[in-house]
């Protein structure tokens, strides 16, 4: 087994075990950062190896790394690390406010690491069955985190999350069984028929009827986790009621990982079917998500809920881009995955501290951040500007690419997208502006807020908007070619 992958998976596993025992100690938050940093180092080593050697399969083909997933591995490890940095002071403040017990801290730290493990396993595995198992594990590890505060609302949110994603993921299992059924005819029974690389090699021989039924089930299943409308009901609740670091990783990482699973299946389905069946489904669900989320945005009063709807909108946009396909749209989709993940987690970091200062998540009661803590205020303002697609941030670049491709390929969709983005802009900007400026009622926090992650993320998004390094562009292009 390659040492990079072994470390990549062993580090969060060890973290999960160690922190389950010592996660309530004062230094546990630093240990959490340490394990995440180790994971990030392993991810960096893996990137270096893939850049040097090209796609690799390791451990008897059980793991497969190409430019598509290695970029998501790097992104996941990076955001998991910065979120751990943010979570250290954030969770300390929550603990001081008496919202989390010692047992709760142990659970939180341990599950945080195991959640990272589950996501990295989804990304690196070559086995579609293991992918399902790991995706379900990612749900299970976060369910108790959403219910961490044990309030009425958080229990309700966690229950909804558990049941809806459970049902969704069951559909994905049926889809996986059907894919195996189609593959078994050609590749024979056994683990080999579930390996993505094997399926990819024979995708044009797979039975089209079975593959199209399978893709519908997979889309419903993994689409529930992506938060595609109309399967999105769990998402705003889980984001609003869980601790903010959990909202950040759910929004920034889990949605991406679920979409990644869907893309892998899309590649195979496209190969098996002559017609663009999967593409049309993805475009339809993506567009519906953008429109519905945009309309719900204006009705939100809870700040985390509002940004959760914004995540639905952006995941819809990315899904639409992958549905259109082609080198430019897929490139834009991948870029948008990156910048959305970085921006949205930065926003959640800023929002988390803002809500702690105001003692509430209700937007009407959060006022004058600029006056009490300009850095939190600027973080939130810049993050909002970035997520709304203002130039020169990276989100502008990717949204611009998606829209121009839509004009060329799917002109009917362009006005719908533009109107939705306009509504989203008006709703979010109108609500964030008075939170940042205006009179204040905020209190001081017992620990200094963690703002390094916020500005690191925003700086990266800015860099991606202004200048994309040629090797990075080449890398995205290569990954986009894999999606088709």
């Amino acid at each position: 087994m390659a040492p990079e992958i072994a470390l990549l998976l062993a580090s969060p596993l060890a973290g999960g075990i160690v922190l389950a025992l010592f996660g309530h100690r004062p230094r546990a938050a630093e240990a959490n950062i340490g394990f995440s940093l180790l994971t990030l180092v392993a991810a960096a080593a893996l990137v270096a190896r893939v850049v040097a050697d090209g796609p690799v399969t390791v451990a008897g083909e059980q793991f497969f790394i190409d430019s598509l997933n290695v970029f998501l591995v790097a992104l996941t490890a990076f955001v998991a690390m910065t979120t751990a940095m943010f979570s250290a002071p954030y969770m300390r403040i929550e603990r001081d406010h008496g919202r989390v017990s010692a047992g709760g801290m142990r659970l939180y730290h341990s599950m945080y690491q195991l959640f990272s493990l589950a996501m990295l396993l989804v990304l690196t595995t070559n086995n579609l069955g293991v992918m399902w198992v790991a995706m379900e594990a990612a749900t299970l590890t976060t369910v108790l985190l959403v219910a961490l505060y044990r309030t009425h609302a958080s229990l309700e949110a966690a229950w909804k999350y558990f049941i809806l994603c459970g049902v969704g993921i069951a559909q994905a299992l049926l889809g996986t069984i059907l894919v195996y059924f189609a593959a078994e005819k050609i590749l024979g029974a056994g683990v080999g028929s579930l390996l993505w690389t094997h399926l990819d090699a024979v995708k044009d021989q797979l039975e089209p009827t079975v593959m199209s039924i399978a893709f519908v089930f997979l889309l419903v299943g993994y689409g529930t986790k992506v938060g595609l409308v109309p399967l999105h009901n769990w998402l705003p609740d889980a984001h609003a009621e869980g601790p903010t670091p959990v909202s950040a990783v759910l929004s920034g990482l889990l949605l991406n990982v679920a979409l990644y699973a869907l893309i892998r299946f899309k590649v195979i389905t496209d190969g098996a079917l002559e017609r663009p069946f999967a593409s049309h489904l993805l475009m339809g669900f993506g567009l519906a998500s953008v429109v519905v989320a945009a309309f719900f945005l204006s009705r939100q009063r809870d700040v985390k809920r509002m940004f959760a709807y914004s995540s639905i909108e952006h995941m819809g946009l990315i899904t639409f881009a992958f549905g259109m396909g082609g080198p430019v749209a897929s490139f834009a989709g991948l870029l948008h995955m990156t910048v959305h993940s970085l921006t949205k987690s930065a926003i959640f970091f800023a929002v988390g501290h803002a809500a702690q200062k105001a003692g509430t998540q209700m937007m009407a009661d959060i006022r004058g951040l600029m006056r009490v803590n300009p850095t939190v205020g600027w973080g939130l303002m810049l993050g909002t500007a970035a997520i709304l697609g203002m130039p020169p941030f990276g989100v502008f670049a990717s949204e611009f690419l998606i829209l121009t491709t839509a004009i060329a390929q799917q002109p009917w969709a362009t006005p719908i997208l533009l109107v939705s983005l306009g509504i989203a802009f008006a709703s979010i900007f109108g609500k964030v502006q008075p939170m940042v400026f205006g009179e204040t009622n905020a209190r001081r926090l017992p620990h200094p807020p963690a703002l390094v992650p916020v500005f690191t993320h925003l700086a990266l998004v800015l860099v991606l908007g202004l200048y994309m390094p040629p090797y990075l562009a080449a890398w995205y292009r290569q990954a986009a070619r894999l999606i088709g």
Partner: protein
Amino acid sequence: MLQHYGPQLVNLFAAVLLLLSFAMLSQRRILSLINLYAAQGFVLFLSTALVAWLTGQHHLYGSAALTLALKVIALPWILHFLIRRLNVKWDVETLINIPTTMLVGIVLVILAFNLALPISQLAGTVTHSTFGIALASVLLSFLMMITRSKAVPQVIGFLSMENGLFFAATGAVYGMPMVIEFGVALDVLVGALILGIFVFQIRERFDSVDTRHLEKLKEH
């Protein structure tokens, strides 16, 4: 002899499985519901073992053993434990009355058979005709989750859906590779344990495990 009647016996088990799904849909008492779930697991175990013997697919014996351990013994035991500890023997309340639910269930079965037709025609297994029944029991479990308002019955619906999926895998492809079955079983078990913790938390908060209390989070 058994070789000859084997496939028909598998079909018989499939029919019993569907019957049990309907029984669960119409059952009002929670203890009976758990027992029906255990019975469903047992039928699944029998049919998997039979298919293993008929086809010589040795890994299916493993799945059968796993089914017996998990779905006939462990999970029903956990559920019984939960019910005892919560000290409730409520009748299950349904959101739609039972005759209507049954009628919807029949429509779902027809739908499932239609959907399964192209797939079972392609399947080369001796058990290919059971795929429709498996799909039907998945949909019926889904219906059960929708129509029940209490936490535990909803979860039994979820577990029974997993039974249907497992049966689908046996029917269409003689089961998934063993590694995957272990993974799925592990997820289900962990899920059931988390559910146990969860039901206690809900009860501690609300003094009831009726999920209708969990309907405050709505769009305004």
